[in-house]
């Protein structure tokens, strides 16, 4: 621990906390396992390679977006622009490729533009002091707007283009879809980095107590800048994978992805007030939502229930979050008055 000013006590606190995180994930995992077994026994067509594979592929984009969203939420921020940045990246790469620019160069440009949107978000939030909700709401509209301007509303098709690019979205490695492997790598890598590296640990300190983090020598503004940039780059990457999977870029891609990602992160243990949450937890949240949606399709539950159930999951999760924080606050007030 060579970061200046991080106290020893904070480290031991983190070690204890880490154990709790793992416990919580184990909990969510066991619930998913129970649900899985339940569906396998009761729902014909659930436990087939085909169904599981499609369900997994279906949650990749939300999963990648949720990885970045976890970072932002842990830092006590929120990023509403991810769905739009996903669309912008996808449309931009598709547009450039359609106009005979090498697809890899086009992808690079799309990622750089995504990075810039995140940087602008982070800059205005950390340096100018705009509220994250408002700033990213604005960027959500701007990025979607640019996607509409580029395409004039019509989808861009790159069917039959560079097969090595399409491989990332459509190919398989040892029977596992490439796109799923990419998600797993991002989640495992991201989770380890966020847990183990001193630099990313700072996100937890900033999110749980910004003032103390500042006093202990953490460059809080740069941390904010970093989380929004990472979130946007991941959203941009999800956009490219969407392009590679469908060989088509639409300005409406990723609609509502930001809300699904926030819901999944909260279910996975992240808090809207910052300081808690893990990437693996968020992935489990995405998996749970994906399983619920798959179950609704398989069990012939009317489509009119789909929105309702997804909405209920979100509301219940956020309600739980708020109630738990209210209790936390009460205990704190009590503790404060004892001093």
């Amino acid at each position, binding site marked *: 621990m060579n970061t200046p000013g991080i106290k020893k006590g904070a480290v031991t606190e983190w070690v204890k906390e880490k154990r709790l995180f793992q416990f919580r994930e184990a909990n969510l995992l066991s619930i998913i396992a129970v649900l899985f077994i339940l569906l396998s026994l009761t729902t014909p067509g659930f436990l*087939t390679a085909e169904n599981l594979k499609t369900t997994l592929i279906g949650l990749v984009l939300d999963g990648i977006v949720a990885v970045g969203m976890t970072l932002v939420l842990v830092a006590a921020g929120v990023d509403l622009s991810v769905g739009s940045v996903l669309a912008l990246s996808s449309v931009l790469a598709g547009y450039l490729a359609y106009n005979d620019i090498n697809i890899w160069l086009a992808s690079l440009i799309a990622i750089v533009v995504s990075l810039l949107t995140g940087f602008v978000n982070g800059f205005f939030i950390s340096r100018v002091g705009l509220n994250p909700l408002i700033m990213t709401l604005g960027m959500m509209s701007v990025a979607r707007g640019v996607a509409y301007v580029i395409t004039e509303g019509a989808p861009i098709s790159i069917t039959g283009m560079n097969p090595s690019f399409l491989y990332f979205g459509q190919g398989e490695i040892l029977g596992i879809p490439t796109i799923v492997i990419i998600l797993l790598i991002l989640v495992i890598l991201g989770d380890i980095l966020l847990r183990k590296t001193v630099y990313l640990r700072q996100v937890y300190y900033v999110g749980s107590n910004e003032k103390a983090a500042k006093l202990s020598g953490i460059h809080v503004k740069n941390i904010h800048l970093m989380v929004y940039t990472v979130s946007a780059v991941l959203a941009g990457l999800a956009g490219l994978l969407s392009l590679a999977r469908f060989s088509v870029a639409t300005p409406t891609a990723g609609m509502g992805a930001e809300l699904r990602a926030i819901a999944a992160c909260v279910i996975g243990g992240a808090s809207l007030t910052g300081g808690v949450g893990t990437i693996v937890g968020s992935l489990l949240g995405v998996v749970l939502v994906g399983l619920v949606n798959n179950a609704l399709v398989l069990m*012939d539950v009317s489509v009119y229930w789909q929105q309702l159930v997804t909405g209920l999951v979100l509301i219940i999760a956020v309600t739980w979050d708020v109630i738990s924080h209210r209790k936390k606050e009460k205990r704190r007030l009590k503790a404060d008055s004892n001093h």
Partner: protein
Amino acid sequence: MSSAIERKKKGDLKRIQTTEGVMVMKKSLIVAIAFMLSLSTLIGCAKESASDQETSAPYQGSKDEKYVMVTFLSGIEYWKNAFQGMEEAANNLGVKAVYKGADQYDINQQVTVLEQVIAQKPDGILVTCINPDALVAPINKAVDAGIPVITFDADAPDSKRYSFLATSNYDAGATAARELARLTKEKGKVGVVTVPGQLNHEERKKGFVETIQKEFPKMKVVSIQDGKSDQVQSAQATSAMIQKHPDLVGIFATEASTGVGVGTAIKEAGKVGKIHIISFDTDKGTLDMVKSGVIDATLAQGTWNMGYWGMHYLYNLKHDLIHPVNDWKTAKINPLPPFVDTGVNVVTKENVDHFYSNN
């Protein structure tokens, strides 16, 4: 924000305690979800237990046969009529029709639902395509696996689907032009409020504009505005259009919510009867405006027929009942009409009541 920081300042140890609290609650939340799911599993099982025995007549299927309709934006009223048609056909044939879809306008979600449906190996799929290219791969996968696929309303022309049932949008636009011309006695300035960039709307607009140009020399399309598929935006666009062209005599709205927006603006401007409106589709808002005379006529698409005949096509394919040649599979020909125009009907004050019952 700063008070939150103050609050957090002291709570290092307490945070660990309360994290446990959050965890417990989260656990019970997840248990609740699991419970809800298992409950609906039971309901789902109970529903499926009935089954009928097969008879020898070719148009008598079995209740075990399952045909699935897959849509996007699955909650909207528009698909309801199509599924009603499909359901009625399924009842007539003695098979089961199921409605599934993705609730948002998102390719990823529709493809995921479609793939999950294919994984269940139903007896046939009637699908409307959110995007012509993105659905090619899953549709082909289904057809290769022996599941007949018919598209309706929106097509994936490069796929192996057997047939496509939909409104010819260009012809619908032409019908709108002729209807508006009848109302305005074939003269005067008219406008269009549409959704630019969407193929079906572009075609309706084109059919309308070109028919006016070709068939009604005393009429002129003076303004084409973007209603953004939204009532409020369409009303704004319409108000601006009336300001600019006070002598306007008619407006064609290429979509339902656009039509309601146009109608509202005309009503607010006190120009009902002076500016005639032709709208599209038959959701309740539009029908109400037709009934009250704000909208002169709306074009009802043959969505019911898309579902009804789409279901029949699937059944015929599944049961191998069509033989335009001895063996169309080895001959590699399409046994079905590749495109069916399900047409439009003009809905006016006189017949509007009949369209309510369908919703």
